[in-house]
């Protein structure tokens, strides 16, 4: 039995880069972010110059859990409510999720990298 989530006030300034603001229940979410983030001094470049395939971090497999531990649990909701008065957020970015409601399964992956290229001081 799923509880009800009640939020009185919610303020989210921005929601970008395939992020989700969900009000209500959901069953499954598997957000996935790759990124690279290049900082380069004095040159223009575009995405093709830094393909994901070039870097092992983006091709390396994620570690997986071997086996799901058998677990028996009982949840008894005497008061089936989750109440939040106010939520104040600046940003939801990079395949992220803000949800008011239940979400059964989450399988989120993220990679990133960061490259800084500085011009040689001549």
């Amino acid at each position, binding site marked *: 039995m*799923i*509880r009800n*989530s009640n*939020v009185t006030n919610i303020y989210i300034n921005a929601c970008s880069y395939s992020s989700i603001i969900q009000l209500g229940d959901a069953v499954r979410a598997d957000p*996935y972010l790759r*990124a690279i983030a290049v900082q380069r001094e004095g*040159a223009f*470049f*575009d995405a*093709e*110059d*830094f*393909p994901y395939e*070039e870097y092992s*971090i983006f091709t390396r497999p*994620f570690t997986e*859990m071997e086996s799901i*531990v058998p*677990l028996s649990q009982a*949840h*008894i909701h*005497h008061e*089936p409510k*989750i*109440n*939040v*008065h*106010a*939520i*104040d*957020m*600046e*940003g*939801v*970015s*990079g395949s*992220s*999720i*803000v*949800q*008011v*409601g*239940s*979400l*059964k*399964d*989450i*399988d*989120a*992956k*993220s*990679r*990133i*990298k*960061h*490259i800084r*290229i*500085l*011009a*040689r001081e001549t």
Partner: protein
Amino acid sequence: MNFTVHNQGLNVGNIQVTGVASSSVLLIGDNETIKLSSMYDTPPESYIVGSVVPFGGGQSGGRIKL
């Protein structure tokens, strides 16, 4: 292992979060399974000083001058 949870209601006043980023989740509600995986990685090749040969098949290979 087995365990029983008795919920008497959950009340939170205010939540203030600057940002939720890179496949993160802010959930106000129930959940069964959560699996979060992340890699960050800034090895030596990530900090380059001086001339750079553009990697990979960038068609615009010749456009970059340092």
